[in-house]
């Protein structure tokens, strides 16, 4: 009964989200704000109703109600309680419900936060968000209903896919969805700007934090997915250029480009159309990503079960959104042509433009690489595969260019810059970079790509350091304090800039991690019997034992390795090969030992049936942790940006007349 209640509340949510489309439309047509208030109530109730639906489903997971088909497919009585909850997003239907829930959460929050400050935007925001929500709720209720029952009721569930039985499962998908869906808020504001014709910088200012929050979630989600793949899939890498990874990466690329180019509009009031285009593209890519993942159109490790019917619906919906958003942009764009005035070819504005160009080329690389096999198949050419070797050859140079720009863009002045100016800014970083790269060359780093990467990293690092130094001494002089305090004054006075640079530092750390862990990874695959030894770098691994182990819902074998360095035993490692009995799926459990700056990584992908030998894969991944340390720094920077103190004494908030009904103040009343 309870499940039916949940189902029913989601049905009502669909009706209300449809009301969320209609009411703001009527409100705009009749110029009557009451309709917008109704729309807002609809949107808020939608959130409450979907929340109810979700909690009922989670409750049914906990009480093991296997009469629900979806729960039967993704849970089991032996499953730890932790994963019973996470099982909700362990499959297609439930994860869509999570998507819809997050969308309605964002929408409710945005209407609550901006109701007073952005009254003009509200009807459009409610309208756009409701359109998206209606699409997803229809998909959930008509084509992938998680509340569907089965009869006869199975005694026990089929179990959650063992690969998903991992702590990361609890946070990775929600984070990614928070990122994907979070882009819908700036998207809705952009659409509101287009519809209402108020194309100033207001919408950018209002959505800056939303965008960076979505960006933060997307970044963390992607990085966490990488770490998860790293230890769970056991092949020693964290990024495989899998189509579904790319689907999450593409909106990230565009969102990042957008975060940069909005700064030009805020400072110089240029590129209005361009920014609108970017945010529309970013959100469209997150919808297209959803389509790619859900339709089973591409073969991937992540793909959900294919179903053309579902695919057709999602495609229809995505097409509708594409036409709506890009169409509006095209119709409205001519009115927005801002006079572009540049004072110099070499200025921060132009650096931002090149930044955007590189981001878009990076996007095009990933986009084309992902869809090329599909295009070849549809055009009936030879079927091909595009994988890591392609991206390494094509994406990496573009990425290197982007990182180089990171050392240039933020430091050349707005408007105009003289060659003398440039010399002052960049000679020292150049020399520093050359010197450090030379040092690494002498130390034995000889791979051209690694050297090029390091050169760029050191260049940017020096540029950042010089800039920080300049800022700190400026404020120190001004406030008559020391440089350290000066730096904090700089942060207080321009938090957005400093947090941005912190994010850049995070990127640099990550790049160093990527360079070393991918180019200087050493690896061996071999068959070992207990008692045998193998050397890797400075380590000796001796397989001391190979024996059977058992868990709650799996059985398996475990190998015990004694790890020696310079004759001393430093640790023991226990990689496992598991077999999950309910779902009849094997998995490999990685053993990781953290060395000074990297990882020693051991898996046993295959064990002889009689347990006499095991196929062993050992890797040494130098500096691999820097990838996630860098990600951590990026996240800290983004956090500081979101929670920065709002500077006061800047344009007092003009409070227009009161509470709810003053939306009407901004919707022009019909003249009678």
């Amino acid at each position, binding site marked *: 009964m309870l499940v039916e209640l949940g189902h029913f509340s989601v049905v009502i949510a669909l009706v209300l989200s449809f009301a969320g489309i209609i009411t703001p439309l009527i409100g705009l047509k009749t110029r009557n704000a009451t309709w917008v208030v109704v729309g807002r109530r609809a949107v808020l109730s939608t959130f409450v109703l979907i929340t109810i639906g979700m909690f009922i489903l989670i409750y049914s997971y906990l009480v093991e109600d296997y009469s629900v088909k979806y729960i039967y497919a993704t849970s089991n009585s032996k499953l730890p309680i932790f994963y019973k909850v996470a099982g909700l997003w362990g499959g297609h239907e439930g994860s869509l419900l999570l998507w819809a829930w997050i969308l309605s959460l964002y929408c409710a929050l945005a209407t609550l936060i901006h109701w007073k400050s952005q009254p003009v935007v509200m009807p459009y925001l409610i309208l756009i968000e409701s359109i998206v929500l209606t699409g997803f709720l229809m998909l959930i209720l008509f084509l992938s209903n998680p509340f569907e029952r089965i009869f006869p009721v199975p005694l026990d569930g089929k179990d959650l896919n063992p690969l998903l039985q991992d702590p990361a499962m609890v946070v990775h998908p929600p984070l990614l969805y928070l990122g994907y869906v979070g882009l819908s808020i700036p998207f809705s504001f952009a659409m509101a700007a287009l519809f209402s014709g108020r194309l100033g910088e207001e919408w950018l200012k209002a959505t800056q934090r939303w965008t960076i929050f979505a960006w933060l979630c997307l970044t963390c989600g992607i990085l966490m997915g990488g770490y998860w793949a790293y230890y769970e*899939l056991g*092949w*020693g*890498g964290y990024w*495989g250029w*899998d*189509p579904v990874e790319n689907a999450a990466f593409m909106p990230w690329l565009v969102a990042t480009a957008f975060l940069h180019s909005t700064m030009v509009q805020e400072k110089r009031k240029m590129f209005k159309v361009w920014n609108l285009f970017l945010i529309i593209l970013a959100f469209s890519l997150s919808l297209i990503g959803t389509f790619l993942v859900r339709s089973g159109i591409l*073969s*991937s*490790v992540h*793909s959900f079960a294919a179903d053309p019917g579902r695919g057709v619906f999602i495609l229809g919906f995505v097409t509708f959104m594409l036409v709506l958003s890009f169409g509006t942009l095209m119709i409205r764009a001519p009115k927005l042509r801002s006079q*572009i*005035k*540049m*004072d*110099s*070819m070499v200025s921060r504005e*132009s650096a931002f*433009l*090149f930044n955007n*160009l*590189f981001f*878009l*080329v990076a996007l*095009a*690389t990933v986009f*084309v*690489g992902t869809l*090329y096999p599909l295009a*070849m198949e549809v055009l009936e*050419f*030879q*079927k*091909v*595969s*595009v*994988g*890591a*070797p*392609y991206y390494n*050859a*094509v*994406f990496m140079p*573009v990425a290197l260019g982007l990182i180089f720009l990171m050392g240039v863009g933020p430091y050349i002045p707005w408007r105009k810059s003289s060659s003398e100016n440039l010399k002052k800014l960049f000679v020292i970083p150049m020399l520093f970079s050359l010197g450090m790269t030379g040092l690494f060359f002498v130390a034995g780093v000889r791979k051209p790509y690694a050297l090029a990467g390091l050169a760029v990293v050191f260049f940017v690092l020096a540029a950042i350091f010089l800039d920080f130094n300049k800022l700190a001494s400026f404020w120190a002089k001004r406030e008559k304090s020391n440089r350290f305090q000066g730096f904090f004054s700089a942060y207080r006075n321009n938090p957005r800039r400093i947090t941005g640079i912190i994010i850049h530092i995070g990127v640099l750390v990550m790049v160093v991690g990527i360079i070393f862990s991918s180019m200087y990874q050493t*690896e*061996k*695959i071999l068959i070992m019997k207990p008692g045998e030894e193998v050397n890797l770098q400075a380590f000796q691994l001796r397989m001391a034992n190979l024996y059977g182990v058992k868990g709650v819902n799996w059985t398996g074998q475990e190998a015990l390795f004694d790890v020696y360095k310079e004759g001393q035993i430093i640790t023991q490692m226990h990689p496992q090969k598991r077999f999950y009995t309910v779902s009849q799926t094997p998995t*490999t459990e990685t053993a990781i030992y953290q060395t000074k700056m990297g990882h020693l990584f051991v898996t046993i*992908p*295959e064990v002889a049936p009689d347990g006499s030998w095991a*196929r062993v894969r050992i890797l040494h991944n130098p500096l691999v942790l820097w990838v996630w340390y860098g990600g951590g720094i990026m996240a800290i920077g983004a956090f500081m940006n979101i929670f920065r103190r709002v500077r006061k004494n800047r344009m007092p908030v003009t409070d227009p007349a009161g509470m709810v009904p003053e939306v009407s103040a901004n919707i022009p009343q019909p003249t009678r």
Partner: protein
Amino acid sequence: MAQSKFFILIVFFFVMSVAMAQAMDEDLLQEKTKEVSKTLRCAVCQSESIWESNATLAIQMRDIIRERLIEGESPDEIRAYFISRYGDYIVFKPRFRGINILLWGGPFLLLAIGAFFLHRNLRKWTTQSTQTGPEHLNPIDEKQRKRIEAELRSLK
């Protein structure tokens, strides 16, 4: 006598060199096997290379790559062999020919075209704006000047 000694010596050297070569090249061989296997798709898996995969077919393919490397084949020859058996689908690195050139060159072409247009537009925009020097702006009247000064004072 001398002949047989010489013969033994030759055999000895031969055996030694083979043994040495095998011992020394083992790491290099693994490295090369890895390099080649990373460019080949595990046909029975989902977007994994045969280096990463643990499927039997992938393991067997790795062994074949290893053997062919020992026989002295180049990575390209080995890839060509797998393509002749499994089609272009088996390589993660589409061959640089025919329509695939577009795939490889496309991003760089886009970068070049983008840079070209950007450069051209930047030129256009900068020349446009040089005409709007200070003398082209509306002169400020006394009232505006006072306001600006007052604002500047308040900043301090």
